[in-house]
């Protein structure tokens, strides 16, 4: 593959995949530490009905209604889970299971019932994403990176996911101390006068933002894998929060780049012509990284 092909067909999906992986892995650290790891799983399921609803209302696949719809769905899901937990006195795992499966089922049903044949919205796209299709057709080579005409043709997903990743990284950096304190010792955080409930809700909102933006670009399976696998693997490498977040970012980037490369070129090395699902391969690599960390990580016990 020469430089021109790489820039056209691989550079943007690689960048988008890596940024999506980062956007999910960063808040994932706190979800894993707060034993809310499955919230990422739940959010990435309930995003689907939100997106379908936004499509049914507006009739088009455009960014803002979809972001709004999926954010609404995420908030509705969190409120429902909390209500079932509190009023029905049902344990959180089961309450979560009730809500996200029912909302996902509603999303699937709405999707099957509505006429989405004209647009790019179907169940498989929602699950696996379509990383391979996010190509930069206007690019002719590395020189296109400084060519304003070609830059205008960059896939819009790239800008959205970059913006979201920057917002997430900045908000983690700004709220680092209160986040860390309330994650490790909620009682102590409360005596310091920190708004622990608001912090908890903030983490949920940031995760929802990451899930929605990444879902838009890469599908729900990468979202779930990146929320949990890199932070969990990082947790087995170190006892320090800062180091853990750094490890998780590194693991997420390795999984995204290695997964994408293996999916695109791996089959060719084995003599097959067809590429396999990039989203699936990224998730698989993340799982392998976690398995290695669980077997050999210095802080695994």
């Amino acid at each position, binding site marked *: 593959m020469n430089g021109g092909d790489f820039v056209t067909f691989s550079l943007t999906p690689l960048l988008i995949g890596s940024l999506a992986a980062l956007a999910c892995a960063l808040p994932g650290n706190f979800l*894993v530490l707060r*034993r*809310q*790891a*499955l919230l*990422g*799983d739940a959010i990435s399921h309930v995003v689907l009905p939100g997106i379908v609803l936004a499509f049914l209302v507006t009739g088009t696949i455009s960014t803002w209604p979809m972001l709004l719809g999926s954010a609404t769905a995420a908030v509705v899901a969190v409120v429902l889970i909390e209500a*079932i937990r509190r*009023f*029905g*006195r*049902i*344990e959180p*795992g*089961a*309450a*979560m*299971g*009730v809500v996200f*499966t*029912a909302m*996902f*089922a509603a999303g*699937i*049903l709405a999707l*099957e*019932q509505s006429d989405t044949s004209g647009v790019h919205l179907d*169940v*498989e796209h929602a*699950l*696996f994403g379509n990383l391979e299709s996010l190509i930069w057709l206007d690019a002719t080579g590395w020189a296109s990176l400084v060519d304003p005409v070609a830059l205008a043709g960059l896939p819009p997903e790239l800008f959205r996911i970059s913006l979201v990743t920057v917002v997430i990284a900045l908000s983690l950096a700004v709220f680092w101390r209160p986040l860390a304190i309330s994650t490790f010792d909620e009682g102590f955080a409360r005596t310091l006068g920190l708004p622990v409930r608001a912090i908890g809700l903030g983490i949920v909102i940031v995760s929802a933002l990451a899930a929605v933006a990444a879902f838009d670009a890469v599908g729900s*399976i990468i979202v*779930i*894998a990146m*929320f*949990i*696998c890199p932070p*969990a693997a990082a*947790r*087995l490498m170190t006892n320090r929060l800062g180091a853990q977040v750094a490890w998780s970012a590194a693991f997420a980037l390795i999984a995204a780049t290695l997964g994408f490369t293996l*999916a695109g070129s791996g*089959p060719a090395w084995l003599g*097959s012509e*067809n*590429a*396999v*699902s990039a*989203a*699936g391969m*990224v*998730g*698989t690599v*993340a*799982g392998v990284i*976690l*398995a290695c960390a*669980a077997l050999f*990580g210095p802080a*695994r*016990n």
Partner: protein
Amino acid sequence: MLRDALTFQLGYNATLVTVAAVLLGIAAGVTGTFLFLRKRALVSDAIAHATLPGIGLAFVALTLSGLDGRHLPGLLAGSAITAMSGLFAVQWLSSRTRLSEDAAIGAVLSAYFSLGIVLLTVIQTMSTGQQAGLESFLLGSTAGMLLSDAILIALGGLLVVALVLLFRRPMSLVSFDPGFASTSGVRLDRIDLTMMGLVLGVTVVGLKVVGLILIVALLIIPPVTARLWTNRVELVVILAGAFGGIAAWLGAGLSASAPDLPTGPLIVLVSFCAFAVSMALAPRRGLFSSFVRHRRFQAGVHMRQGLLALAQGQPIYEPLTIRLLKARGLARADGMPTREGTIRAARALRDEKRWEVARATPELELAAARYDGLTQIEDVLTSDQIAEIDRRIGPPEAVQ
């Protein structure tokens, strides 16, 4: 059309599919109950997603050995094998590393599912003609189900129900009190393994009908619904089975009545409707009864505080308190007590004073701990104890 579907008039095949779905619903409801009571409901999500690579591998193996890749028993056997390895991976990660069970579930779920998707894309590009339609295992589909498949699912459901009945005692013991269960000689790990084995059985059997993404709903929603209605474990099991069976019957019927209505999501949504109704109306945990209970408690507190204020001749400004006192004929609109109100106020003040003495008496400490500003002291102490308290308070004084 819907009526035909629900009353089994759509022909032999459709009827058998519905019967299979109902048996699956019952099996999932009763099995899920123990999983839910053991607080491990979401382990089933990991098991379900871990079936996907098994389906892919089984298809490849069947095709390579020259058989029909869509042979259902073969695919289910393959899915059971990877599901089992996923289950052990969850157990191993949560017991041997510092990761908590929820992180282990999420990690196994996403990694196995990703691997499964990779295998599916490999299969899509394999040069065999029979392009598998393995995607139907993601969301389930009863359309075009073979007769033998329906029989297999129905028998699987029956077998799971029979096994749950057989193991119901040790499983409920372990669900409620693992500590007691292990001291009374029940092997915790074996019962847990049995429970998970049954869950795995339901998942594998349900793949074709509901699909692997939504099968967890059948294991979780009916037990949670049943739990809202009763505190007795046998009843929860029976109700969960009934809710699961009815949801499967209605869902499969609805799905057969029109095109473009996938079976799995419909069963899940019917099940969720039953849950929503129960959440609203259930006797103790329902929203309506919580609301009534809250209002009753609020009224009790306001009445008590209002009466104490009347007894001490203090003015009442709180509108709800005045309204409650007026409605019961204990106060007039200007906030002055009626004759009945004066009597009740004096009684409330006496009760409060008796509690005050009881709280200051060391030998009544246990009983006095039940003071909450609403309970009458007569409900807690005997008449001799109250007489002793009254002796220490002294004779009653006239109220102005």
